[in-house]
């Protein structure tokens, strides 16, 4: 009797173990993904360096693979988008900017005071010159990413952009253009970015993120050069008509699109990292500055003070202290500021500073661009990705799956080391803004990208 029971008990336990192993795992019931009303057979991302994957002040392969365009397409692939074709730079990931400098990495740098600290440093002596002078055009695989670093809205139809004989040509575009560095005799004109996009068949869906470069060079010059694109004027000259002609082209071919608005670029770390009142003085320095500037009516105190800047509008001497809200650019020579009384005895030059008036001018222009973008995108039935909202949120800081993201230089986790372009993680978050807009407008259910899968700045 006892024996039989022991057998049943063992059988019982064996069964339990069997049940334990098999029925214990929750089943995955994922909601279905759908492209909604869009056709993703031929997706093309159109834009500037953000779309191309320009980051750390260079275009390099890893950045391209983690670009806004590539990450967006990776998600679109879940609902039918095709393979990602990128005009890849070299696999050594040295990268280059238009001045042939390599990408920035985080490294150690000794400053003028002998202090060693983390700082963006160039990865190599020289950038990937060869990549900029070698055509990567392929008639077989049309690029799904027409992100061109530096591309302005008005450059879309430009026949100068790919003409390597002209100083204003764009080397990043020329290397991927179908002209392959050679004047196309049969057409007479060098082909534009737009011609390249439509070459060999229209896309079925586009993302368009243009306009930043229509104001950024002006802002980066401290509002001293590179005038902003005017709102009015013919395609190729005015912002609005350039946008309309592209939209018309797409609309006439029944091509749907998602269009990004433009963020307030002056809130990017390139413009916000150095505080206007970062001039820290001890008693002796404050006294000597008071001696210099006292006659002009400016006084200095021990502790934090406003930097001194050149401003032609400021009295007879054209010098004044900065006021709250004004910005110093990351291009300002930090060693001179730290060790050579730059920004105090010697005022900061105009090109390193954005004054309140200049900031107003830039921000107004961005608002005007955005109004135009919204108006025409609505008219043509395109989705609108409010990137401005996203960048603002980044500025305030937010928590993403347990990770605090902010617009802080280096430590914020979203910007690359150039302080303007996003890093892969930032690009993924930005791509999600585009996907959210697509989902909403075209009744699609495209999963967002997991931004934590994408990297931030590497620390040594």
């Amino acid at each position: 009797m006892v024996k039989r029971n022991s057998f049943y008990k063992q059988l019982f336990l064996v069964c339990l173990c069997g049940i334990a192993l098999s029925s214990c795992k929750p089943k995955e019931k994922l909601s279905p993904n759908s492209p909604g009303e869009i056709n993703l057979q031929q997706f093309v991302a159109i834009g500037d360096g953000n779309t191309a994957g320009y980051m750390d002040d260079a275009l390099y392969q890893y950045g391209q693979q983690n670009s806004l365009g590539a990450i967006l397409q990776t998600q679109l692939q879940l609902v039918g988008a095709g393979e990602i074709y990128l005009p890849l730079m070299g696999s050594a990931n040295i990268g280059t900017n238009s001045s042939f400098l390599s990408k920035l990495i985080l490294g150690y740098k000794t400053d003028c005071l002998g202090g060693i600290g983390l700082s963006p440093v160039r990865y190599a002596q020289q950038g990937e010159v060869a990549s900029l002078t070698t055509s990567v055009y392929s008639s077989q695989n049309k690029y799904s990413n027409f992100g061109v670093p530096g591309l302005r809205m008005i450059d879309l139809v430009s026949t100068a952009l790919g003409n390597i004989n002209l100083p204003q040509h764009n080397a990043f575009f020329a290397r991927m253009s179908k002209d392959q560095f050679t004047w196309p005799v049969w057409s007479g004109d060098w082909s534009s970015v737009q011609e390249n996009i439509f070459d060999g068949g229209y896309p079925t869906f586009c993302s368009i993120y243009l306009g930043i470069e229509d104001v950024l060079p002006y802002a980066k010059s401290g509002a001293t050069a590179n005038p902003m694109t005017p709102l009015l004027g013919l395609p190729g000259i005015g912002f609005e008509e350039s946008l309309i002609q592209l939209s018309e082209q797409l609309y006439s071919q029944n091509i749907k699109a998602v269009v990004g608005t433009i963020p307030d670029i002056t809130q990017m770390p390139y413009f916000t990292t150095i505080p206007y009142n970062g001039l820290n003085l001890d008693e002796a320095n404050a006294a000597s500055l008071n001696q210099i500037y006292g006659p002009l009516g400016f006084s200095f105190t021990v502790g934090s003070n406003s930097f001194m800047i050149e401003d032609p509008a400021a009295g007879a001497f054209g010098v004044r202290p900065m006021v709250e809200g004004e910005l110093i650019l990351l291009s300002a020579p930090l060693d001179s500021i730290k060790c050579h009384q730059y920004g105090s005895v010697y005022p900061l030059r105009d090109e390193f500073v954005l004054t309140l008036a200049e900031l107003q001018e830039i921000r107004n222009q961005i608002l005007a661009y955005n109004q135009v973008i919204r108006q025409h995108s609505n008219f043509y039935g395109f989705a609108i990705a409010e990137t401005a909202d996203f960048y603002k949120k980044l500025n305030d800081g937010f928590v993403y799956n347990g990770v605090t993201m902010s617009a802080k230089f280096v430590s914020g986790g979203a910007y690359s080391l150039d302080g303007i372009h996003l890093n892969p993680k930032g690009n993924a978050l930005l791509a999600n803004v585009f996907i959210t807009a697509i989902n909403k407008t075209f009744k699609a259910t495209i999963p967002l990208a997991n931004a934590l899968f994408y990297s931030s700045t590497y620390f040594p």
Partner: protein
Amino acid sequence: MKRIYLGTLYLLYFVCNNNGFSQGFQVNFQGQRQQGMGLAGTAAPFDGSSLFFNPGSSVFLNQNSIVGGVTPVFGNVLFIDSATNAPYRSTSPVGTPFSFYAMFQLKPAGKLKMGLSVNTPFGSTVQYEDNWIGRFALTRLELKAIFIQPTFAYRIADQFGIGGGFVISSGNVNLQKDIPVQDTNGVYGHAELAGKAIGFGYNIGIHFTPSKQLSIGLTYRSKVAMNLRDGEATFTVPSSLEDKFPATSFTGRLPLPSVTTLGFSYHPCNAFTVVLDINRVGWKVYDTLAFDYATNTSSLADTKSPRLYKNILAFRLGMEVKPTKSLSLRLGGGYGLTPVQSGYVSPETPDGIRIYGTFGLGYELSQKIRIDASVYYTKIKRSDTNLETNMSGTYTTIALAPGLSISYKW
């Protein structure tokens, strides 16, 4: 004899690796008979487990006895992130809540009873797959607490018994998560907080038998504040950030809630018993999970994570039939509210309202030796967006817990 040997081995093998798949990190596997009857039995004394369920009822058992039991918990969590529509799973080890009871009386049917209860009413080990989307919130959490409770009980009258015990709880905590800074190979940093904790409490109960058929039990198990002292925090980060993440000691506090139970047992005939327990768990004490680091830096601040648990009720119902003198069959189930409020569901306790079912059986091998076994099954689903981490998705937890105990009485 061989069976006892095997059982002991089984017990030793799993040592004390708890796994809490119950409300919060409460573990309700303290007795196989109760586990078979929907985790109820406060008013139905059975064996040494009464020392835990209701010390006041143990005096109604005319025996000296020793009971040992273990309940492996096979638990799996699936998290589906709502934004990316991607699934992530737990890889938690098998949990092993155990219990051991020894109960003695000075003379047969004496009024005084003494006993020792050693068990694991709280604990949790949850670990998630590598690179999961919540890795910066949690990768692994191990909470262990062993309650040691010397107990006395006294029968005041034939219908009325009281009992109480003093609880010493010894435990440890190990919490790990990744840090969102990457080295030059792209590898993320990692944080590990580990420490031992100790806490004290008590357990009192009264047992009342108004009629031959009905018993009523009322118990209160106090909260136990587990104090963590000299925990060790270690961080693996890129070398350039090491001074911002120094290895440091830390202190913390983890309150384990009080449990008040009102239980009923209805016993219309020898072969049939119905039990009902109503639990109130004082989870409100788990208000904040705070870590106070001895060394703070710009990157390493003391943390205070709101948990804001709330007190809950749970209802447990079960029955037992005895087709033969030596065989018992049991069936039960329960319904428990969750202490975790919306906005506070986290990977550490992906808790929700739960409904569970149990069954069990017991067999008396001889006058002295019996074996009891049970199975518990639950599936919990909870969708939430955590206010602190902004993790948003649905947790589905399935737990299956087959348990076994052996008792010896004389």
